[in-house]
């Protein structure tokens, strides 16, 4: 259980605390983000129940690599309108510290102490946004990719592309074989590159050796075209969640990116919204 006060954290409530839900004892839940356990604690049981539904299936008992306290400082009705966008810094950068703000929430993270405090409304979107910032920093041996992940039971394929390219459509078509439809971690290990699902947006836990990457686009028929490594690298660069706030972490992520771009075959996959796309998608990697 975490302490309830951190003198280093400067948090100013965005609105008055919701008087209908008085603070109670702090409770916590742990969830697995591709072998990185994160513990969330809050005195607001309703928020914690929301979070448990949000990350259902990813519960873990592993020792947390990061502990996050969530202070509910606004009702759920204080919900922002429109896209989330990237978070902005509220303080000058300091070593291993992040002070950020998003729509109606703030976060202060101390990566040396492996703690963070989020203050926001009774909703889970601030945690989603914060985890997208922190995961690239917590997974130094991997890259967080904007991709769906599907598997033939033995190997995994990352199916990436900009929003609207068909990640969620493909994952829904292949629901029995899909691990996630938004973010996955690609990790370079001693035995190759492993793909792990992350709980964004529809997801279940899953990991498998990475067989290849497909850059998706909608089409009338299924068509797969192998991309030259340099073309693939340019497309893939735009689909990585880069740890831009720390140059040393960015350099490390770039080295990992280079390894993945060199080793993993990449195709452009034009597909029609039909389940038989599986035959093309899971075809031998030499084609």
């Amino acid at each position, binding site marked *: 259980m975490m302490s309830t006060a951190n003198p280093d954290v400067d948090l100013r409530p965005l609105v008055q605390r919701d008087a209908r839900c008085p603070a109670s004892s702090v409770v916590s839940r742990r969830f697995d983000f591709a072998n990185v356990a994160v513990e969330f604690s809050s005195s607001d049981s309703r928020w914690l129940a929301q979070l448990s539904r949000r990350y259902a299936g990813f519960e873990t008992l592993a020792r947390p690599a990061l502990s996050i306290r969530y202070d509910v400082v606004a009702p759920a009705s204080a919900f922002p309108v429109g896209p*989330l966008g990237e978070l902005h810094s509220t303080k000058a950068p300091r070593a291993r510290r992040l002070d950020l703000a998003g*729509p109606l929430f703030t976060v202060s993270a101390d990566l040396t102490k492996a703690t963070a405090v989020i203050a926001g409304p009774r909703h889970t979107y601030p945690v989603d946004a914060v985890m997208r910032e922190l995961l690239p920093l917590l997974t130094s041996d991997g890259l967080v990719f904007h991709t769906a992940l599907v598997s033939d039971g033995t190997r995994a394929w990352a199916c990436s592309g900009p929003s609207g390219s068909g990640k969620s459509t493909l994952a829904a078509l292949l629901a029995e074989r899909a691990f996630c439809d*938004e973010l996955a971690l690609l990790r370079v290990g001693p035995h190759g590159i492993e793909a792990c699902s992350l709980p964004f947006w529809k*997801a279940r836990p899953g990991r498998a050796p990475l067989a290849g990457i497909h850059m998706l686009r909608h089409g009338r028929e299924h068509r797969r075209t192998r991309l030259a*490594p340099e073309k693939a690298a*340019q497309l893939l660069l*735009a689909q990585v969640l880069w740890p*831009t706030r720390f140059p040393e972490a960015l350099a490390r992520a770039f080295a990992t990116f280079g390894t993945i771009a060199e080793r993993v075959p990449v195709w452009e996959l034009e597909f029609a919204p039909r389940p038989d796309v599986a035959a093309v998608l899971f075809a031998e990697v030499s084609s």
Partner: protein
Amino acid sequence: MTDNDSEANSPRFRRASHVAWRKIGNETVVLDLRAKRAFGLNEAGGALWHALVELPEGAGVALASSERDAQAFLAELASLGLIEAVSDGMPGSSTPLLAGFRCSPKVTWSDEIRAFGGSVCGKTPGGGGGCSSFPQTA
């Protein structure tokens, strides 16, 4: 004026300290860690880049006046902040670094590096809903 004269007068360059790079396929991708921007160099540009980064500490590349394409390329890299002029150190090389390449050295593309990658979408925050929506037994 001879090539040797122009070499002596031409600026010499070395890579900036805030860049990382990787040869991928026929291109070299250079990442500016400060500006958070990636650049793709074609094969000839990559050859020149690697000649530059393999120099000993304090050394710089100088080019013969006949290598105008290379000079323009280095000037572009300098304007992008990827390399910087040096005023001391070892003499530059007048070796025709680009012999054998049919194309001129070029920066072929550049892209911003973003914290959320391509994940900044039009989805309403929290619109992802709950997980476990895919079958657990697959």
